[in-house]
């Protein structure tokens, strides 16, 4: 399709375009009100003085003009056109109002265009700057529209595809092409929905009014009213169907003449209650079979009943009363929000709730809908014959991402009305993407909504008028500690010079520093696979060469100084029950160590010390974790490890590495041989090793490195003494003495610590106690002092 054809498609809206150009809707609205009020005023005055009658008639006729123009306007607004699509009216106003030699100007200057760009989070100032500084003007003959899409979408896609300058302008504001299209569709949908809601004479709005006399044929359950609440449907102005499939299934089950009972089963947060809301909407529009018309959905709260009664007799009597009255009323759909809790509620009184409920299963006058999580259904409800026999299971699947966007769009409209701040479309898409990435365990819609609420509060505090991506990313960073958002100048320098920063902490391990730096840069840029852990490394090398120190540095650089390192000594998990200890045991009902640690600290470094010493089943578990970033606990609930960096350390190859270095071989050249030896010795299986992002070989420390470590350890001591007012001077001889004393190639830098403790710290402690040195003293130790 070309631009001319697009214009031809929309030409039938030209009359209303002219009307909008001459008398915009808003101006008409105000004038109509004024003329009507004037008509009333002069009509009243004409009672006292007949000469006002003329004015009253003039204003009435003027009001009539505006009334007729409104009819004309709405007739075009809601005019159906298969070719031009749902948003033809709004699109026609933009296209017919655009100059043929500058289509981008026409779009950006139109009412809709301004609204779309604002929804993208692009402020007016930037829009003006772009319009005045651009070099290219998109004319009609150069404007190409893609085929096979809705006209509205094709027009927008055409704008981006035909004008690179405009595309770059959008991208420069961190708005992706899909986000621009999403923002546009949302904006125009809201405009359409608002207009629809004003059209009181439309059948949709008229049929929403509650009828009279419909409930007279049904009874009332006063007991039910005490312990239950009618289902409330959120007042969304966007009427998108949510869980339509499940609602239709539920409708079929509840329309049966007997045993019309259903069990909605799904994971937490998938929207089981929303299935009922969807059914409620269908019932409101009378789009259900006759048997369900006039029915009311009541949600029974067993906890309210349990709190109100004191003993078994009252509990039993009240529950039966509720059920009997509900059945007698004849128009009740009885909803039990937590089926397993409902059935177990009588246990404390020694009463079987199931036995009380079962006589009503076959009732033709009452429908029962139970709700349960998948896990509880499998564990508690499925084994019950009565439930399986009388309830039809309806599985509720989580909403797809498109639907999730619609739900959030609807939520956002309410939120904006509450807090008076605009939430941009890119902020919504970022909230969804980040929820999926960083908050795997919680229901997606809930997390994304919470993120938007917190972002809106933050933006509001900052005095902003619109919530953008950056606000959402800031909230994520403050919640998780994970650096998110766009890389700014300071951070850019830090990331590009990571090697230098890390070398200041890690001595003599240049290869390790490089691998870790690369991993951090990959994770920070967000290009890594989101379905795997943030990073996974196997550090191989002799003891005391800086494997743990590297893991700590990695955590601090990536997650910040206060980051939490989860440390597991894998040598403790070498027995056959190790797997149960890590993921929990269903039999003993004990939670697993790994599960608890990851749920408490889902962001940070997971350090697995002495990885080779663990049980083979545990190795298999970690093979899955490293591969997918997710595993199931004893109850089958998902546990995420996608936001941790996994570092497994092993001394297994220490001897081999040590031997290679001793014989003067280059480690990087013999890397493959070392790994092959590890596999040949059966320490790790090749499939496990292949899953790590990197296998890092740590060198044994040579004398220079040990000297450097000595200096750094002494520096730490100097800092500690400084806090007590004592100055320790470090001399070359002291460093040489300690390096010599603490040098043990087999144990790396570890003996150095002991050497400092046994010599330097010991001497200073004695001197402090004897009063030889005190606060304000300066001390320098010689070889004589050290003996």
């Amino acid at each position: 399709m070309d631009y001319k054809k697009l214009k031809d498609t929309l030409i039938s809206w030209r009359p209303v375009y002219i009307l909008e150009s001459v008398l915009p809707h808003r101006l008409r609205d105000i004038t109509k009100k004024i003329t009507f009020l004037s008509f009333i005023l002069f009509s009243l005055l004409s009672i006292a003085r007949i000469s006002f009658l003329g004015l009253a008639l003039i204003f009435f006729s003027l009001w009539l003009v505006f009334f007729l123009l409104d009819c004309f306007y709405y007739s075009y607004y809601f005019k159906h056109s298969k070719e031009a699509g749902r948003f033809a009216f709004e699109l026609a106003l933009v296209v017919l109002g655009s100059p043929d030699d500058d289509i981008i100007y026409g779009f950006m200057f139109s009412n809709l265009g301004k609204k779309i760009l604002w929804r993208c989070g692009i402020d007016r100032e930037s829009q003006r700057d772009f319009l005045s500084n651009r070099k290219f003007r998109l004319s009609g003959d150069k404007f190409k529209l893609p085929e096979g899409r809705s006209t509205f979408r094709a027009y927008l896609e055409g704008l981006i595809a035909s004008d690179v300058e405009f595309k770059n302008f959008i991208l420069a504001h961190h708005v992706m092409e899909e986000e621009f299209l999403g923002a546009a569709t949302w904006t125009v949908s809201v405009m359409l929905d608002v207009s629809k809601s004003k059209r009181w004479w439309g059948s949709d709005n008229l049929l929403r009014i509650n009828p009279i006399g419909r409930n007279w044929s049904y009874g009332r359950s006063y007991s039910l009213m005490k312990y239950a609440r009618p289902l409330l449907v959120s007042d969304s102005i966007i009427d998108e169907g949510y869980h339509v499939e499940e609602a239709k299934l539920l409708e079929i089950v509840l329309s049966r003449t007997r045993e019309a009972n259903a069990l909605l089963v799904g994971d937490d947060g998938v929207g089981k209650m929303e299935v009922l809301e969807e059914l409620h909407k269908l019932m409101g529009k009378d789009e259900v079979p006759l048997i369900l018309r006039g029915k009311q959905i009541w949600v029974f709260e067993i906890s309210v009943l349990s709190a109100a009664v004191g003993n078994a007799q009252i509990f039993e009597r009240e529950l039966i009363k509720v059920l009997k009255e509900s059945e007698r009323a004849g128009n009740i759909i009885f909803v039990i929000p937590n089926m397993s809790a409902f059935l177990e509620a009588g246990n404390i009184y020694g009463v079987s709730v199931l036995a009380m409920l079962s006589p009503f299963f076959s009732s033709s006058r009452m429908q029962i809908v139970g709700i349960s999580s998948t896990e509880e259904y499998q564990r508690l409800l499925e084994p019950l014959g009565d439930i399986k026999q009388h309830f039809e299971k309806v599985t509720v699947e989580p909403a797809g991402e498109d639907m999730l966007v619609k739900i959030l769009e609807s939520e956002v409209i309410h939120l904006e009305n509450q807090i008076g701040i605009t939430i941009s479309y890119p902020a919504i898409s970022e909230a969804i993407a980040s929820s999926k990435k960083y908050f795997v365990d919680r229901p997606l819609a809930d997390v994304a909504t919470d993120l938007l609420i917190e972002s809106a509060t933050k933006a509001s505090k900052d005095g902003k008028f619109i919530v953008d991506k950056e606000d959402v990313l800031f909230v994520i960073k403050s919640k998780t500690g994970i650096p998110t958002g766009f890389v700014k100048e300071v951070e850019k320098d830090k990331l590009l010079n990571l090697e230098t920063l890390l070398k200041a902490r890690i001595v003599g391990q240049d290869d390790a520093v490089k691998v870790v730096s690369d991993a951090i840069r990959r994770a920070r840029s967000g290009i890594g696979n989101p379905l795997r852990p943030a990073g996974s490394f196997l550090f191989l090398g002799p003891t005391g060469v800086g494997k743990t120190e590297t893991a700590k540095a990695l955590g601090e650089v990536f997650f910040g100084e206060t980051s939490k390192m989860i440390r597991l000594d894998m040598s403790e998990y070498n027995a056959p029950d190790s797997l149960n200890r890590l993921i929990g045991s269903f039999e003993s009902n004990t939670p697993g160590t790994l599960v608890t640690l990851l749920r408490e600290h889902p962001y940070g470094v997971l350090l697995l010390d002495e990885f080779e010493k663990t049980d083979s089943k545990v190795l298999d578990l970690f093979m899955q974790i490293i591969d997918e970033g997710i595993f199931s606990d004893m109850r089958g609930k998902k546990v995420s490890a996608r936001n941790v960096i996994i570092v497994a350390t092993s001394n297994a190859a220490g001897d081999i590495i040590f031997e290679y270095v001793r014989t003067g071989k280059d480690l990087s050249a013999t890397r493959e041989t070392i790994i092959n030896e590890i596999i040949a010795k059966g320490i790790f299986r090749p499939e496990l090793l292949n899953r790590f992002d990197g296998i890092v070989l740590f060198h044994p420390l040579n004398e220079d490195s040990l000297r450097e470590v000595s200096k750094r350890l002494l520096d730490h001591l100097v800092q500690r003494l400084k806090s007590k007012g004592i100055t320790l001077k470090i001399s070359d001889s002291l460093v040489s003495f300690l390096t010599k004393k603490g040098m043990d190639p087999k144990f790396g830098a570890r003996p150095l610590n002991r050497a400092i403790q046994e010599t330097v710290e010991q001497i200073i402690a004695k001197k402090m106690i004897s009063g030889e040195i005190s606060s304000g003293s300066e001390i320098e130790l010689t070889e004589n002092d050290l003996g």
Partner: protein
Amino acid sequence: MPFLYLIPFYAKWHYTEGFKDLFRNWKNLIFFVLHFFSLGILFRTWFAPFGRLNEEYRKGLDPEAFFETLVANTLMRIVGFFLRTFVIIIGLLILFIVVMLGPAVFILWTLTPFILLFLFIFGVDQTFAFNIFLNFYGL
């Protein structure tokens, strides 16, 4: 004046699409009256007890209890019958008005542009005492 340019478009719409819209809205209104007064349900349940406030007959032979229940249930049916009859009558009356008003509104719609013009000229005449109409009728 661009506004005058609009007049032929409007006139065309008024006597084509405008009529269609009017017909659609009239139909909506008829459905709304049927829905609002629940006429279908009320006809189907005309003689049912009001709010299902009926008692169940006890088992066994107990004439006194039987007649007590019978009287109570009949009373509830009578109450239900009168209430429903009342709403049915009001509903039918309004339905009749809406149906009858339809053709009248169609005629009014056809004449609206002329009525509007007449009211405006008459109003101006009244206000500024041109007495066009009095002169026209030779008064």
